[in-house]
């Protein structure tokens, strides 16, 4: 009995020991002295909470990483809850900054207004959707929007199953489709851009929210076609072939390249945004972080590094001016679409 009791005490002591070790490991570490990335300013500190789109996540992650290296006292957290989920948190005041792969919607504007959340809208880069086929596919080099619609529209379900049906000159081989899952922003934008209506799509294709699964699918099937974020095409160029898109049917074929994505001449390109809670810009660390995010040279370098497309240099200046002037609300008023040139909206 006594023996056993001692054993149990030892066990308990061991557990307490482990716990206290854990506690010690988690104890706040004194931050090392600032490396001086921000010499003219006083030492910044505080917590900046960012959430929202998974498409914009890599950009904000890169910014947060570099900003924290230069300002050791500032903590930046970045979450992924999707553009819609993120706006819910942003408009109820939970987060300071919001990543968005589209402009704020009417309902979201109302939600923000209801909670007295004023916000500043900043385009920060572009996202292109790549339409891809297997590299062994020699015939599909350029497709018109009408042809893509013929493939992807809801009416095509179970009917358009052969490449020959897309264009008479194409060989008589089966058509295998891979695309974004219906919860993703890529799906929304692709269906709007190709089928003319958001979320209108055939359902008999292989969907995945994980673009890597789609890359695998198309690269392993010579009759396949798929679509996903252009960054995934850039990383897998050896395994995939991008299909050029002829947006007006006039024989002008464009691929998902930086220039074409930047000026929207590529059919499936869209701007991505950062939204900032207006009151938060009163806090020096948030103001500096946004400034860092919009500094043209820095932004261009970091955004390219993560495989996305940056704004043109002059636009960054225009957007920073909008921040300095504290211009509240969205620039996407009546009549403006995702295709409206940013230079017209952000002057």
């Amino acid at each position, binding site marked *: 009995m006594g023996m056993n009791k001692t*054993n149990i005490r030892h066990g308990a002591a061991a557990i307490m020991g482990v716990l206290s070790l854990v506690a010690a490991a988690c104890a706040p570490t004194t931050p090392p002295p600032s490396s001086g990335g921000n010499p003219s300013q006083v030492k910044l500190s505080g917590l900046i909470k960012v959430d929202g789109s998974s498409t914009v996540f890599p950009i904000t992650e890169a910014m947060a990483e570099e900003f924290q290296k230069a300002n050791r006292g500032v903590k930046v957290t970045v979450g992924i809850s999707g553009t819609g989920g993120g706006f819910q948190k942003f408009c109820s005041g939970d987060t300071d900054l919001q990543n968005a792969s589209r402009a704020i919607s009417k309902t979201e504007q109302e939600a923000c207004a209801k909670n007295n959340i004023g916000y500043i809208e900043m385009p920060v880069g572009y996202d292109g959707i790549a339409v891809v086929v297997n590299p062994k596919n020699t015939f599909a080099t350029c497709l018109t929007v009408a042809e893509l619609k013929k493939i992807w529209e809801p009416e095509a379900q179970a009917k358009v199953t052969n490449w020959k049906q897309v264009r008479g000159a194409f060989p008589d081989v089966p058509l295998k489709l891979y695309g974004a899952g219906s919860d993703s922003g890529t799906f929304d934008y692709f269906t709007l851009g190709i089928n003319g209506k958001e979320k209108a799509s055939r359902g008999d294709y292989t969907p995945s929210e994980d673009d890597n699964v789609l890359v695998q699918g198309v690269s392993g099937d010579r009759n396949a076609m798929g679509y996903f974020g252009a960054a995934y095409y850039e990383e897998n160029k050896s395994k995939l072939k991008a299909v050029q898109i002829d947006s007006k049917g006039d024989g002008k074929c464009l691929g998902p390249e930086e220039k074409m994505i930047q000026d929207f001449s590529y059919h499936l390109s869209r701007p991505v945004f950062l939204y900032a809670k207006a009151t938060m810009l009163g806090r020096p660390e948030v103001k500096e972080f946004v400034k860092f995010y919009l500094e043209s040279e820095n932004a261009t370098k970091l955004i390219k590094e993560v495989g996305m497309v940056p704004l043109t240099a002059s636009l960054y200046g225009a957007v920073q001016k909008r921040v300095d002037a504290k211009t509240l609300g969205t620039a996407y008023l009546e009549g403006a679409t995702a295709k409206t040139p940013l230079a017209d909206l952000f002057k």
Partner: protein
Amino acid sequence: MSISRQERNLAGRRRGDRIFGFVGLGATVLGLLVLVVLIVDVAKDGLPNLNWEFITSFPSRRPGQAGILSALVGSIYMLSLVALIALPLGVGAAIFLEEYEKRGWLASLIQINIQNLAGVPSVVYGLLGLGLFVRLLGFERSLLSGALTMALLVLPIVIIAAQEAIKAVPPSLREAAYALGATKWQMIWHVVLPSAFPGILTGVILALSRAIGESAPLITIGALTFIAFLPDGPFSPFTVLPIQIFNWVSRPQAGFHDRAAAGILLLLAVLLSMNAIAVYLRNKLQRKW
């Protein structure tokens, strides 16, 4: 004549027995084979990346520099909190159900509920945590919210394990304690709990092993994906291993996929060592009557 028929019959049944043995073996081997293929595949990509630098670095946009420190510390910190919350609650509930309210409608009502709760999908706990801890109690998306949610998730497992351990204590020990003049509480504290301790401990560690691999409830309450600092208290924002791994798997760059594989190996190592501790403690502390 009849003897040879019996023998033939017997031989046939033995053959059937052997065939069934092979089928059983096949089923086991198939399961193991899948596991081996998975582990070998992960180890192939992950092992070259699993080094000290990986464990002690923060996540990064550059796959080559991305480390898992904040997720690892977040997971360990959260599990410690889960243990601190779930152990007293779970053992308390088990003592109540086994020693105080063994029969009666209240006990059976609670019992049924606990068994049902053990089968509730984890994302439902996440929604509960989001509503209760994050919003209503205002703990925000902190380690504490995550730990409380996870504690609720594993509580049924802890209660059931503790109940089984308490049940296994022979009644003669309780009676002996009473015979010596112990009160009910003295009997529980000095006789039942020490005897049931190894079983309870095993249950708790197995419950924590479940918690370490869960990500759905944490994503629901809004645990974060990019954190490049260590938590400085229970109210700090945090991330955990499965969330970090999930993020790396879904990135376009192949380098991140290798980091994810290394993260999976690390998660497996933490999980296996927790189970090993459970087995060790059980063997060391177990008593025989």
